[in-house]
């Protein structure tokens, strides 16, 4: 920033501080507390701020225009427009605002004028009144068909904007489907965009048609987005090739070409989504880093009334221009495509820098085994390969296999392959059968394992010295598990109550158990025994969450009181939908799992109970382990905070629990009760005052307990 004369003279004053003075400054600064205002001493001179305030300056309006325009640029167009009414200064700021946005939907018919005419008049007026010599952005959004000469007006606006060196043009226009030609009759982009678009950096076109023009030049264009644009094969190729600075090309539901030809040495990102006419790809883009191709799928109803089949966008040919044609590609995402020729995978071996590959809902023909030296992440979801997919990826770190109705048989091999794998996620995957999976696990240094809906094994066997996170989700055939993972910090299990032993884990383990009811609806007679055995595995855990539909799976009943509580657990959470016992019994049943050295959270439906304890010293625990009175001891001498939310005031059970907590807890400091918005109209507590009075009347063990209602 340039300094004004006045400021520079101030600066030189600052520079001319004599040696003595500066050393005083220096010492001062050593004892001066940073960021603290000197309130005691009045500054000798009046501060600039005060001076300005005294003069009654509106300093915001005096910020540089580009900065105010920057603020306005974040506002929706209507809000920005209203800025012009703030004051005369702001009117001029509005008139020089370099973003021109027009939306037909904002306008209504006026007198005899249709809303389109009002809209057109507004566009014209804006260009005549506002400064259009420097335009950053032009956006036009129409809602009606191109009648009333709308297209000519749009062309006129674009022409003016191009003269004003516009950087971004965004057109969203309405087009009509022509049944005869089976195409959309839309706005035909004028020649001038292609010949005089030297200032364009971003071009966003929706629902337009590209005419065929010979001269195409976009020397500054970086981003080209086209949605539902009809463009010829040659024109598209020309547009991409004639943009030497291009970075991103995104084509969505575009038509008019059956071969996508992309030749540009600078292009970094190419996204093609649902362009249904494409049959072949030709790519020569040695800087291309990201390529996403999303084909079209449509459900085809067979005439014979059989199940609808899915038809995928078939790519019958693809060509990479030369050996370096896709040299830089790091990410490849393919979905809804059918590629039956082997060439494509032959080509894969010519992507030497490929790091991420994701294949979704697609069908591939036979392919030779490929070597992908740099591949780090490979995801396959619901894909089918003809024959065995053989891949050699010596540096693979993440493998995610999700099986759908398509089957994929995969064989990954390579000498050191397993050594680099850190994350493995199998969703419904049966391509790797029982023993080979556990064998694979014991051979590699896996850190994250996610098994979901895998119905092909009965036993889980994870013996790993590196595993940090393990998720077993809805694998309903699993009967038992063997887990030895000393570094495990995150364990999530969703499924039936099973026997797992032993989990050897670090003291940082955060575990979540989400029990589902068996399908046959018959409760296991050994439920409690199994539950207790399972819980024993979490002796060392830091935090444990138990989720179940009913309270049966989350508590230890009184008759099982000999269960030694989990002594090291700091946080226990229990979530259930409905309650089969009283709240007080639920609380006791949960406390039998652990005395909770820090927090206990219980939720039943919408009601939550949050208890905080003073950390119970480990030495004391020994005293009340195995003892039923330990529970009472824990409440009496350690509970410091209780919070109940979503209480509808209509539960004697909760009142009973509250009474217990209040009469027992000697160290209790705060009790917060937040009531539901709709309080019941029925007895016993039809008005909150009655309930509040009753709660306040309970005898309190702690003299300092504060009860508050929200």
């Amino acid at each position: 920033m340039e300094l004004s004369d006045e400021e520079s003279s101030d600066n030189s004053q600052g520079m001319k501080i004599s040696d003595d003075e500066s050393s005083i400054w220096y010492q001062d600064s050593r004892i001066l507390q940073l960021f603290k205002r000197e309130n005691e001493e009045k500054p000798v001179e009046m501060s600039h701020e005060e001076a300005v305030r005294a003069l009654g300056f509106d300093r915001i309006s005096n910020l540089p225009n580009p900065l105010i325009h920057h603020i306005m640029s974040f506002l929706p167009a209507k809000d920005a427009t209203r800025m012009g009414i703030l004051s005369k200064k702001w009117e001029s700021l509005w008139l020089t605002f370099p973003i021109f946005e027009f939306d037909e939907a904002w306008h209504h018919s006026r007198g005899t004028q249709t809303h389109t005419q009002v809209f057109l008049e507004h566009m014209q007026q804006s260009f005549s009144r506002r400064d259009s010599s420097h335009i950053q952005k032009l956006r036009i959004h129409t809602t009606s068909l191109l009648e009333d000469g709308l297209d000519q007006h749009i062309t006129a606006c674009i022409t003016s904007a191009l003269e004003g060196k516009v950087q971004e043009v965004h057109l969203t226009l309405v087009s009509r489907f022509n049944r005869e030609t089976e195409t959309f009759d839309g706005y035909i982009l004028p020649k001038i965009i292609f010949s005089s678009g030297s200032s364009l950096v971003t071009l966003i076109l929706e629902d337009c048609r590209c005419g065929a023009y010979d001269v195409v030049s976009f020397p500054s264009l970086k981003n080209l987005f086209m949605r539902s644009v009809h463009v010829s094969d040659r024109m598209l190729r020309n547009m991409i090739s004639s943009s030497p600075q291009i970075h991103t090309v995104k084509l969505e539901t575009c038509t008019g070409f059956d071969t996508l030809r992309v030749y540009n040495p600078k292009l970094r990102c190419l996204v093609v989504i649902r362009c249904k006419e494409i049959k072949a790809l030709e790519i020569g883009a040695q800087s291309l880093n990201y390529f996403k191709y999303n084909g079209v799928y449509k459900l085809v109803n067979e005439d014979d009334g059989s199940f609808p089949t899915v038809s995928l966008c078939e790519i019958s040919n693809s060509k990479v221009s030369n050996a370096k044609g896709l040299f830089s590609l790091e990410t490849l995402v393919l979905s809804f495509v059918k590629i039956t020729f082997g060439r494509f995978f032959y080509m894969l071996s010519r992507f030497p820098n490929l790091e991420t590959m994701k294949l979704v809902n697609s069908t591939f023909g036979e392919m030779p085994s490929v070597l992908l030296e740099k591949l780090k992440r490979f995801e396959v979801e619901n894909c089918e390969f003809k024959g065995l997919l053989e891949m050699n990826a010596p540096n693979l770190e993440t493998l995610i296999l999700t099986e759908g109705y398509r089957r994929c048989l995969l064989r990954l091999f390579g000498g050191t392959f397993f050594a680099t794998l850190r994350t493995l996620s199998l969703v419904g995957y049966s391509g790797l059968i029982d023993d080979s999976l556990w064998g694979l696990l014991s051979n590699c240094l896996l850190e994250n394992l996610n098994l979901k809906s895998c119905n092909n094994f009965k036993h889980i066997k994870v013996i790993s010295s590196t595993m940090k996170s393990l998720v077993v989700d809805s694998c309903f055939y699993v009967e038992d598990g063997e887990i030895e993972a000393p570094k495990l910090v995150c364990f999530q299990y969703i499924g039936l109550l099973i026997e797992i032993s032993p989990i050897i884990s670090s003291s940082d383990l955060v575990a979540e158990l989400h029990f589902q009811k068996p399908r046959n609806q018959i409760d296991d007679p050994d439920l409690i025994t199994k539950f207790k055995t399972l819980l024993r595995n979490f002796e060392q855990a830091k935090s444990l969450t138990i989720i179940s539909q009913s309270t049966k799976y989350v508590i230890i009943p009184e008759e099982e009181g000999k269960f030694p509580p989990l002594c090291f657990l700091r946080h226990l959470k229990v979530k259930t939908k409905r309650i089969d016992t009283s709240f007080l019994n639920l609380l006791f049943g949960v406390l039998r799992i652990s005395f909770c050295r820090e927090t206990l959270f219980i939720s039943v439906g919408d009601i939550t109970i949050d208890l905080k304890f003073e950390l119970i010293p480990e030495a004391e625990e020994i005293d009340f382990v195995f003892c039923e009175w330990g529970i009472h001891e824990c409440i009496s001498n350690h509970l410091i905070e209780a919070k109940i939310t979503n209480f509808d005031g209509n539960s004697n059970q909760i009142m009973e629990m509250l009474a217990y907590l209040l009469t027992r807890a000697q160290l209790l400091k705060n009790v917060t009760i937040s009531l539901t918005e709709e309080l019941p109209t029925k007895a016993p507590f039809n008005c909150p005052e009655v309930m509040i009075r009753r709660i306040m009347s309970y005898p309190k063990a702690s003299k300092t307990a504060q009860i508050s209602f929200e």
Partner: protein
Amino acid sequence: MSKLGQAKRIIFLKTADGQLFEVDEPVAMEFEIVKSFFDENEDAADDTVVPLPNVSAEPLAGIIEFCKAHVEFRANGAAGKDEVKKFNAEYIKEKSNEQLKELILAANYLNIKEMLDFLTETIANRLKNKSVEYVRAFFGIENDFTPQEEEAVRKEYEWAFEGVDED
């Protein structure tokens, strides 16, 4: 010469209301005005005090807090990540409209690009869908239109007044 490479150099800044701030060099160099001061005065002594006659202590303290955090984010390679967004949201949550205005005026004077980008967006967010009267009060702008003039402009931009918040 500005010794960017050297660690632990402290820059002294003096505000309009006479406060002296000690700021770590990388943080102070976020301020374009301070950077150019040292670029222009290559032989400035280490304990030179840079006067900032247009900034008072309160916004400067806020700016230093912001720049310090962002310099660290960049050093940790966390730039652009969620923790930056979280910090920014937390930082601005406590600021009143008045403080926000002081911050942008100061940041503009000090010429700190990253912070200006953040503040302009924040101000815009606070003005979204607000009435003309609200925005005038927010910025402290005096309406110098005559009622007739204002009526005429309002009529012209009639469409821009639909669906404005009632405050």
